[in-house]
């Protein structure tokens, strides 16, 4: 396209061009551009006068490829104007964000008062220096046995929920947000909630839940709904985490960040990659998805000498319940464990339907034990896992060969697995069990097995905690 004088670079900020030459998916190519910075924010004005925000994805000497967050609908190659702002993407942060509901790009949608930022922060954030990190060790009592007893969550951890469509992940996330406390501290968590591409109903569930429990006052809610522009989702987690970092590391809040649904985020990422005609990786997702997700998940943690913390609970609905799908797979490689939901347990009416065998909390070891939860916690957890796994294996076997073929001990394990699911795993949605209650319940179940079977527990602990019939 020929350059007109007005297309040319103007000095300083606010260079404006009418030279959109190509529109493909969420991307536009602007030519005749000089010196567009990588990652620079642009303002796109479509012929109707509507303005949208975009970001430079690739910059060459005379062209810029721009990703448009509001979508490219109605963009033309004649009169659409593109203004380069000279800025990278930033969001204004302030404590007043608490209690507010915003859209996926950080614009208020609750009709509340104008927000006056205390500072402007780059949304991509800088990586925390590994040597500045404080290793997370304060265990969180969520009141949920399956988590507290078996996969303890620690303040500063990133622990995703791997769920599937139709499973109650939203209820569990809301329950955690409601009940989570650190032992010995009255203070609850502030919540930063980022919704990406979820339905009105689901978004409403969270907002209502926060409102009813009074948690909304201590929450910042970002909502990109299913019918909002897909591409906007790509910045929602970054915006939310920038706010979370400000609250945690500048103001000293303990922040619980709930990101839902990361699968939608990854799909948006795939859409942009496809529009750029990049070489696709597994299932069409881009090869850099690991790095991209790490840029989100690694924004959790604690920093030495700073008061606050960021704990992340990303939620993923796994397509077709296939845990090897790239989204859960890459997530699991970055996060510090995972809580995996099971459709079978859900069908059996067990809430929370957490499949313990593939679930894991990597930071559990540092957060439990004497002086933190209880001295027997690690051993009890190992023994419960071993026993439950054995019971589950026997269940498969019995399905083939029948229960009669089992020995006496094996039958105990089979019964153990059933009772474990019914009495330990299952709990009412509003029940809050303390660590002691969870561990005592565990010992009651373990006492179904003879002492000699409890080989993962040291004799001195068995001596102290194993419920004896003579006492009962």
């Amino acid at each position, binding site marked *: 396209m020929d350059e007109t004088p007005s297309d040319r670079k103007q000095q300083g900020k606010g260079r404006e061009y009418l030279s959109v030459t190509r529109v493909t998916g969420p991307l536009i190519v602007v030519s005749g551009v*000089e*010196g567009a*910075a*990588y*990652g*620079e924010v642009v303002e796109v004005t479509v012929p109707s006068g509507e303005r949208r925000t975009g970001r430079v*994805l690739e*910059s*060459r*000497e005379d062209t810029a490829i721009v990703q448009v967050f509001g979508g490219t609908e109605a963009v033309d190659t004649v009169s659409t104007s593109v203004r380069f702002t000279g800025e*990278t993407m930033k969001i204004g942060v302030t404590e007043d964000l608490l209690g507010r509901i915003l859209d996926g790009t950080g614009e208020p949608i609750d009709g509340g008062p104008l927000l006056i930022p205390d500072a402007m922060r*780059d949304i*991509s954030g*800088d990586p925390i*220096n*590994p*040597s*500045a*990190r404080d*290793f*997370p060790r304060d265990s969180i009592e969520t009141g949920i046995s399956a988590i507290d007893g078996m996969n303890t969550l620690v303040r*500063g951890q990133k622990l995703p929920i791997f769920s599937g469509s139709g499973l109650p992940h939203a209820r569990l996330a809301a329950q955690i947000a409601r009940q989570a406390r650190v032992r010995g501290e009255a203070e609850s968590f502030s919540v930063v909630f980022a919704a990406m591409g979820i339905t009105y109903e689901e978004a409403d569930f969270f907002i209502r839940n926060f409102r009813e429990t009074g948690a909304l006052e201590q929450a910042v809610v970002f909502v990109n709904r299913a019918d909002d522009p897909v591409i906007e989702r790509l910045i929602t987690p970054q915006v939310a985490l920038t706010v979370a970092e400000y609250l945690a590391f500048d103001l000293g809040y303990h922040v619980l960040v709930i990101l839902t649904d990361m699968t939608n985020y990854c799909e948006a990422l795939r859409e942009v990659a496809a529009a750029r005609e*990049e070489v*696709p*990786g597994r299932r069409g997702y881009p*090869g*850099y998805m*690991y*790095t991209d997700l*790490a*840029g989100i998940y*690694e*924004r959790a*943690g604690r*920093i030495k000498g700073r008061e606050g913390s960021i704990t992340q609970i990303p939620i993923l609905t796994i397509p077709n319940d296939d845990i*090897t799908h*790239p989204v859960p*797979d890459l997530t699991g*490689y*970055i996060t510090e464990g*995972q809580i995996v939901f099971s459709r079978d347990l859900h069908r059996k009416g067990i809430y929370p339907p957490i499949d313990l*065998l*593939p679930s*894991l909390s*990597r*930071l559990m*070891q540092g957060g439990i034990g004497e002086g933190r939860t209880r001295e027997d916690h*690690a051993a009890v957890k*190992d023994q419960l*896992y*071993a026993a439950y*796994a054995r019971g589950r294996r026997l269940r*498969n076997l019995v399905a083939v*060969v029948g229960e009669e*073929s*089992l*020995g006496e001990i094996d039958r105990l394990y089979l019964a153990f697995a059933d009772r474990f699911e019914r009495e330990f795993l299952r709990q009412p949605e509003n029940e809050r069990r303390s660590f002691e209650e969870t561990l005592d319940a565990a010992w009651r179940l373990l006492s179904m097995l003879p002492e*000699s079977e409890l*080989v993962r527990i*040291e004799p001195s602990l068995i001596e102290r905690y194993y419920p004896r019939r003579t006492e009962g």
Partner: protein
Amino acid sequence: MTITGTVARISGAVVSARGLAGARMYDVVRVGNDRLVGEIVVLDRDVATIQVYEDTEGIAPGEPVTTTGMPLSVELGPGLLGTIYDGIQRPLEIIRDETGDFIVRGVHAPGLRRDRGWDFTPIVRRGDRVGPGDRLGTVVETEVHEHRVMVPPGVQGRIEEIASVGRYSVEEVVATVRDDTRLHRVRMLQYWPVRQPRPVRMRLEPIDPLISGQRVIDTFFPLMKGGTAALPGPFGAGKTVVQHQLAKYVNADIIVYVGCGERGNEMADVLRQFPALVDPTTGKSLMDRTVLIGNTSNMPVAAREASVYTGITIAEYYRDMGYDVALMADSTSRWAEAMREISGRLEEMPGEQGYPAYLASRLADFYERAGRMTVLGSTDRTGSVTVIGSVSPPGGDFSEPVTQNTLRVVKVLWALDADLAHERHFPAINWLTSYSAYAGRVQGWWAERAAPMWEEYRAEMMGVLQAESELLETVQLVGEDVLPEEDRLVLVQARLIRDGFLIQSAFHPVDTYCTAEKQYLMLELLVRFYRQAREAVDAGVSAAAVGGLAVKSRLERMPFVPNEAFPDEYARVEREIAEAFAGLTAGRSAYGVTTRG
């Protein structure tokens, strides 16, 4: 001689610059007004394509690009031990002092501190003839490690001057060496390009095992000093815990731990634990023997690609001093993915699963830098680099390119298994799929250390485990009922080996490290139990009766008995085994039958 050009294009970590005629491949350049560190990876006339080691956001076409005339190098000298670096050897603690808790762009800090003095003691005298690798003097780097200041590769001649005993900074000249044509000034600080292996005199076969205190590794799938091992596994299978255990306990002199594209909190965990932990060989702080490279997943991807090279170059440097070095790379898949990401941005023709076609050769080149070597220098000295690489296959599927290409070069496979991990059987090293090409070679080492029957016991117990896996297939189909008693005994014994030997808790204060002596004694008790049990079963005792013996629980709890107390425990358990079986067979002869069930 520096050349300056201008940025022409930016796409993620890859930047093109024009006006760089005369720049050389792999030269380090400074990109943009922030002077970000980059490396030239493609040259096309005056256009250089550069991979940038820092976040490129905000860089615009037209900004300057300047060459440094040097390839990507590391600084070598005293002060490496106990330090944590990023992928291009920037000291993270010093960067933190300068710029705060978050890593901002354009920060520069040299790998070795200039302001610190080191106590140097000369070894050579004026007039001595020296060549590459010869020791000029020593420095006490940490309480346990003598840092040997060596003549760098490429320098030889007569010592003209040598520094006397005293304190020097790394930049001060400690020796001058004159050859026929010129005078070389040798400092403690030396540079080496990371992508080029440091030269050695000769490659040797490994001879000693690398003892890790981890039973399944040392006893069943041993690694040797100078060997290579791969540790693939799906997420949650415990790769990092195994790597941490190795970093803590292997009997190497120096550990280089590369956290490549992994979690920040894992590095924080190492930094928290290591200073307080004690090296089982020397009794000193573990941090004193450790160099950490931490380029976490959210740090720039190109620096991740460089991190394994930075690590192995440092490892080679200590090897050249005559040390046994072990390098853990966690995870090599992230390194391969960094290669893939950069290759994609370079618009190279993709190979399998989008990885560049040179993936296999890069992996092979890296693992080939391991080995036991006669190092440079006029006296015969050996040193070794052992490499243990984690692999993170997508979906835990080992048929993917990184795992497969790694297995083509390494000698040991510790295959981590999701099913074992789900049962909390840790370390989740699958004994059926793992292997060690060194098993036959370490036998002599064990035999010399009062473990004469090691090979036989090991084979016998592995045989039981293999038999178990076949029997379990049958059991899955028709149940345990149909098995003859000796087969049911195999199941009992295999269970015992799993619970009493293979499972090892990294978090239990005693079990975390099991000496070679204790491993052998445990193995012997397991064999003894099995042999007596077989005799008993042959004599008509049921496998269930064997499984119900009280002494079996005792065997299962062997892991928790402290190393030093184990010989006593051994004697007691040995006696109990004898008594228990005597009781069983006596019972049988008294009643003539045994109950099954």
